[in-house]
């Protein structure tokens, strides 16, 4: 499939903060959020457009692999962007952010764009972490911040796309070495793939990505 760039993301944060739901919500909107169904996925890809350029996002959830040091280490290193997610209804998930961030900073390449996400913003009544606290944390550590709800799909789109924009800007500024795939950025094939695959690719946006 033809794209200008491919960005690899990882999603990190405590278990149960809704990482895989965010991922699914972003990559496949056909799974409509329903009150009696929690559903997520560990990997997804989707095409977006920034600055008129097709950009493919590949998102890898690291859940369940924390027990292996080698795995988390490698994940961090291979990503251009990271979504650091906490649950606004659980204070402890917010308190653990520092640890996550330290880990990320230690293992990732220094240019990795990190977005802080306070998830489950639909559960206003059970909120334990104020939005201002999230904002303050983000400001202090130089992150982008956003509150989202995987359930209502609020801000999910923006979270992923804003991160991509940030990465894209860094590429334009020449901060990222795009020829180095270890950074989690890949340049698309120079020549768009032949016509025979094009019908498939159009559909693929729906299947794999569900992009409009």
């Amino acid at each position, binding site marked *: 499939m033809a794209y200008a760039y491919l960005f690899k993301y990882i999603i990190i944060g405590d278990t149960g903060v809704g990482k*895989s739901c965010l991922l699914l919500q972003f990559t496949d909107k056909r799974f409509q959020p329903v009150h009696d169904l929690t559903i997520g996925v560990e990997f997804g890809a989707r095409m977006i457009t920034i600055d008129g350029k097709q950009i493919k996002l590949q998102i890898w959830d690291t859940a369940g692999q924390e027990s292996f040091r080698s795995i988390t280490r*490698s994940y961090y*290193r291979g990503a251009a962007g990271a979504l650091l997610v906490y649950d606004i209804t659980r204070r402890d998930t917010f308190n653990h952010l520092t640890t996550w961030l330290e880990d990320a900073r230690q293992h990732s390449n220094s240019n990795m764009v990190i977005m802080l996400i306070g998830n489950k913003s639909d559960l206003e009544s059970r909120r334990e972490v104020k939005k201002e606290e999230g904002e303050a944390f983000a400001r202090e550590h130089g992150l982008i911040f956003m509150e989202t709800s995987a359930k209502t799909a609020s801000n999910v789109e923006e979270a992923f796309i804003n991160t991509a924009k940030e990465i894209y800007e860094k590429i334009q500024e020449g901060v990222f070495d795009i020829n*180095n795939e*270890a950074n989690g950025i890949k340049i698309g094939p120079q020549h768009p793939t032949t016509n025979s695959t094009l019908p498939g690719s159009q559909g693929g946006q729906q299947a794999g990505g569900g992009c409009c």
Partner: protein
Amino acid sequence: MFGRSRSWVGGQGKTKNIHSLDHLKYVYNVLAKNTTVTDHNRNLLVETIRSITEILIWGDQNDSSVFDFFLEKNMFAFFLNILRQKSGRYVCVQLLQTLNILFENISHETSLYYLLSNNHVNSIIVHKFDFSDEEIMAYYISFLKTLSLKLNNHTVHFFYNEHTNDFALYTEAIKFFNHPESMVRIAVRTITLNVYKVDNQHMLHYIRDKTAVPYFSNLVWFIGSHVIELDKCVQTDEEHKNRGKLSDLVAEHLDHLHYLNDILIINCEFLNDVLTDHLLNRLFLPLYVYSLVSPEISEERKINPQVSLYLLSQVFLIIHYQPLVNALANVILNGDLSVFTPQADIVSAHKNMASAGSVRRFTKPPESLERSLELSRHRGRKRTQKRPNYKNLGEEDDDERAGGGGGIGGGGGLDEGWDDDGRGGEREGGREREKGKGTEGGGGGSSKGSRASGETAEEIEMVVMEKCKVSELTEQNITDEEKTAAATRTHTQRSRPFLDMVYSALDCANDDYHALFVLCLLYAVSHSKGINRDLLERLQLPVPEQERTSYSLVLVERLIRVMSQAAQPDGKVRLATLELSCLLLKQSVLSGNQCIIKDVHLACLEGAREESLHLLRRFYKGEEIFLDMFEDEYRSMTSKPLNVEYLMMDASILLPPTGTPLTGIDFVKRLPCGDVEKTRRAIRLFFMLRSLSLSLQGEPETQLPLTRPEDLIKTDDVLDLNNSDLIACMVVSKDGCQAQRFLAVDVYQMSLVEPETKRLGWGVVKFAGLLQDMQVSGVEDDSRALNIVIHKPSSNPHAKPLPILQANFIFADHIRCIIAKQRLAKGRIQARRMKMQRIAGEQSLKAQFATDVLGFGQAAHASPSGLPFRFYEQSRRPPNDPTANRSVFASVDKVPGFAVAHCVSQHSPSPLSSPSPPSSGSGSTGRCDSVTASTISAQSPTDDGTFLEHTPPSLSSGEGEGGGGEVTLVSSTPSTPVLAPSLTPASQPTISLLTDNNADALSVESLTLLPPADSPHLHPCASHIHMAHSLQRPDASIAEEEEEEKEDEQEKTGEQIDEELQKEESSTMDETETDATVKEDNTTAESLTPTEETPEEAEGGDGQLPAAELQETVTATNSVAKTEDAETLTETPDSPELD
């Protein structure tokens, strides 16, 4: 989009609730009607598959009948059917994602079993997808990963088929172990780890017997190829251009090691055996270790020694699996080249593993992983019976070995080592261990003996003895069979080419490129949990937190050499190297709370410390910035101690050391650039060696940091302010708060107080801040007001300074305001000067230090250095002494003279004479300083060390011998150490005493006496290469250790040394300095022996005469420094003789 997708299903209008059994039935019908994929129904099918997932998950969470229906209709079969039609990526991806979601979200065990039954999942796993499509690849591998996360002792049976020997999930996954896409590789690793984690013996046996060899041999080859690429990257680097790529490759290597470690710590024993075998024999030994010694031109050599040292350090830092690291360490520390000769075959041949029938070599596996997996599947099960089981393999091994004793060459030693360890050490290599104990015992005993006797000659004899003893011991303890074996390999076994290489790479004469890696390696080895303590102890390597009585002379000697090289003005030793050397040295010679360092070594170390002092003195300038740098370096050094693991993660140290900060390399990992950095380096060097020296002597640090929080006035302290100068003012802080306060200026701080209610004249501190960090400025429109900002001292120079006080002070009138401003400004200058003074004191303290070294703490206490501090302390706290009290807040410009005196000395033109210890506070110190320096320069190139060591004994002779000596001391110096030091400066007249003239005259004098100011550095290299006397002995002992095996020769060496020593001793009769060095060793270890001291004492007594004369010329206070001065001076006339 949302609406559209819904319409695919919802549009049919059959049902409203898509989450229901009914809907599943409907969807099933759609599937059943569209068994063939066409362009037409593709979208419909995709949406159908997607909604099946949704319903199934909903069913799992809400209604189990959904699953029943799913199974009953065998809907998985439809999926497979669709897949097999080569329906294109669109459908494939959707199917894979559906399965992903399905397995990810299923929470009920039974639902999972339903899904996994019928082997459909395995059929999907082995389906030949178009893996060239990166999207399909990604979804596929994620699918496998999701499945692997569901593995446990029950579910594993759905994937692993004992009867057909199939484990598609695992075997299909590992085929992608070297996929170019990093995320795929990570997923493969995750899958393998999840598999190994399942504790199912059958499955694990299958893994080991059928897949382990192909997988691990390919993995090892893959890692090795990366290493070679890494090495190429280092070799072809020009101007650090490859750093980006290099750091990726290094990170990759670390990833590999962490992965290997993750496998090893799952602790699946027989998998680990295979892995260990491959790692050792196919990678670490042939590629890493062999590269240490192989000649440059040799084809065998694959990578550069420095790369290999670096990588080996990483191995030891990360992997702690005992059989692996112990065997590896054993070869490096103990092994020889026979490890690589074909002899190894005898042992390894019946292993039927990677090493079977071949030499340890880094070679490409004969076939690709996929191919070998294929083959091993077809080779089938009959061969499994024949294959030796890993459990009986060991027995065979042992039998074989017991029978063929002599046949096992040197190479056997290694195999033995790790085999036995791997098996819980039931048959730990008998000879090796016994011999080890012998050595250890002998070593321990001898060094104890030598310490007790303190006789140099004897000590060397003991070392010789030790060698004999060892060989005797071994002879006695080993069986006949072992004896013959030992006989055949004495020659080879005793040579340790790898260890030799490691030690010799510690040489920093040209650069510390290799040395840093060696230090890291030694650090990593000694900290590894997996390495047998016996092994380390046998070689007397530093084991942290272990009681011991001896240490490796070779190592310690080299470490000290690194330090002394670092202290050279043009030393090419980076700070990281130095810090690591200090760390290792401490580890080597500190046993519990005791320091077992030999006096010779301590003396050499002190010599290095001394040189660091000279170096620092070169950079010491009266400039304001020096103080800030000094304090800042101290802060950043203590707040960020070296982390070896992080250090070894940094690829930049793999490239030759550079000096320019433009590379972005951290300061401690490169050489200094420019004067400022050189100063910083000198400061750190000084700190490190000082702290090392203090901790080896068990002395607490009393001088640093210059500002200790416990010495400062803190908020809420209650002070007696009677007789202090106080200025009332209104403090208006930035946020508008107002408070009535009294401003008081102390030596180092300004404070804002309010009256104590209970005691008249006392005040409670409401704020206290360091004067040195204060900025005072007037306020434009108010002549009664001052704006004051005090910044918090920060350890990070890049951080924005954080103000702790930011306020306007409004005084009663503009006169008060001016007074306050002056007082603050002066206070600030003087606070800084005081500190500079103390730094200067620090630097001229060597004499005091020498006394400390030799344990004459008393003298140290009386020394001048402590003065400003003590004085300060005494005066500050109110309750102590009424007289001191009075002066606390007396206006600053009247505070005891030394503070002011310093400003004069600071301005004195001669750089050498400038820093003076505040105590004596007058020109005399300046002179003392310069004379000291000059003395050194006048001395032979040999060493500054001798000088240093020399001084104390004469002092010691005074104290140690009592009567006579003391008389000399007292007579020569009016003020004795007994005098309370704090009194001295106080009674001293202030500025008048120290005039510029005086200082000038002195420095001129010193200059006339001696060669140029920087003369101490004239012979930087010579001083440690052939340090005439003090270093000779350690050198000799190194030689000894290195030539362990040649006993005959060795004895000769011993004799030679004896002779030399005798010569030395006789020569010392007329040369006081050198004599001192030697004697110091002898005397301090035991109590002093008067006979030997006499000549020197006499000399010392005589020598003090000129000193006394000199003293008379200068009006100054006297202190112990004087005595030392005097001593120093005595040397001056002698020195020409030395040359």
